[in-house]
């Protein structure tokens, strides 16, 4: 089994783990963590595609590598936004949870004042 395939399978396993964490963890922070794991697994799949195309002169296909770099930056931005939302939720309600009390409650949470 070539090294590319080994790391590709590793990526598939990580993606599966991350997906499981994203779906089952109730806490938003753990979901965000799991999303990052899922993302890194997916990037390893790109890495597999890149390495598999290696020849004598070229160590790997640069196109998937460039895509991964773009995606890493986007994933970081997404994580930053998600964490900002979690912390803001924490500030406003004292808890960080996605399980909703009735969102239609008209008691009026303190809004943006």
């Amino acid at each position, binding site marked *: 089994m070539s090294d590319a395939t080994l790391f590709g399978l590793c990526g598939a396993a990580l993606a599966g783990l991350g997906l499981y964490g994203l779906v089952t963890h109730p806490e938003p922070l753990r979901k965000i963590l799991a999303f990052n794991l899922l993302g890194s697994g997916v990037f390893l799949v790109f890495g597999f595609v890149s390495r598999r195309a290696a020849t004598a002169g070229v160590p790997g296909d640069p196109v998937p590598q460039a895509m991964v770099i773009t995606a*890493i930056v986007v994933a970081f931005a997404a994580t930053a936004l998600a964490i900002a939302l979690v912390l803001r939720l924490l500030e406003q309600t004292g808890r960080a949870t996605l399980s909703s009390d009735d969102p239609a409650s008209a008691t009026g949470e303190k809004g943006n004042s």
Partner: protein
Amino acid sequence: MTIATFADAGLVLLVLTIGASTIFARRAFDAVIAFVVYGLLLAIVWVRLSAIDVALTEAAIGGGMTGMLLLGAAARLRAVEFDSFAAALPVRLCAGFLCALAAAGLAGALLLSPKVVLSLAPAVMENLPRTGLGNPVAGVLFAYRALDTLLEKVVLLLALLGVWSLAPNQAWNGIPGLRIYDQPNTTLTFLAQILPPVGIVVGIYMCWVGANEPGGAFQGGTILAAMWLLVIIARLADAPSTGNTWLRIGLVFGPVVFLSVGLAGLVLANAFLAYPPGYAKPLIVAIEVALTISIAAALAMLAAGPPKPVQQQ
């Protein structure tokens, strides 16, 4: 089986174990610590995959900046009693089954490789001299698929605006609430005095060398952002207010230069985002320099968070 294969297998085992611990750890804080280690190990994996640019980016952004964000959040959330119940066992079994299915599907797709592996690598290398670059990844990012890179910068700015939008109304255009370390004259202060000059040189070098060697705007920008954050956290400089004109100019400087060069390509070369022959490399380097500044500003501000209302000291 060579030593390298054993080492790779060991690395994969380590990565999988630590990755699994980020999911199955009981406390969020432990999971985040595991994640930071995981990020660093991943960087080594990318080196083994001969993707040095990606390794640099993963170590810097994926491990470093993301880890910092998550640690900060975990610390804030540690004090909160989490009273939600974990998902019930049938749900977890069902989810586990579906995720295993997805992973198996992915694995199957990877194992059943086609006989002839198609790739764009020959085309990339063939056309690289036209761009004057030595780094093929830079060629893809700034020449062949420049549109994606340009728009991704806009995505970064939008995410930053989204983070800023979470400020309370009266704190708008205030100073980000990055937690700073209150005690002066400690190890942190020492580090914040020693590291940034070195870090800035490394960051600039990394941006500069990206045209021919692994590196580039993203990697260099991240290092500069990290140095800036270090200085702010150690209280050697103040975080800028989000309405600061220079900050705003710095944020858009990269995309503006990139877009201008692209539009100039309509006139001077054949198409939008095309480079006039012979001038491709200097233009690309100029774009990378401008982008480094913007990326540094954007990443640092993303890590700093939304503006906070002024607190009593």
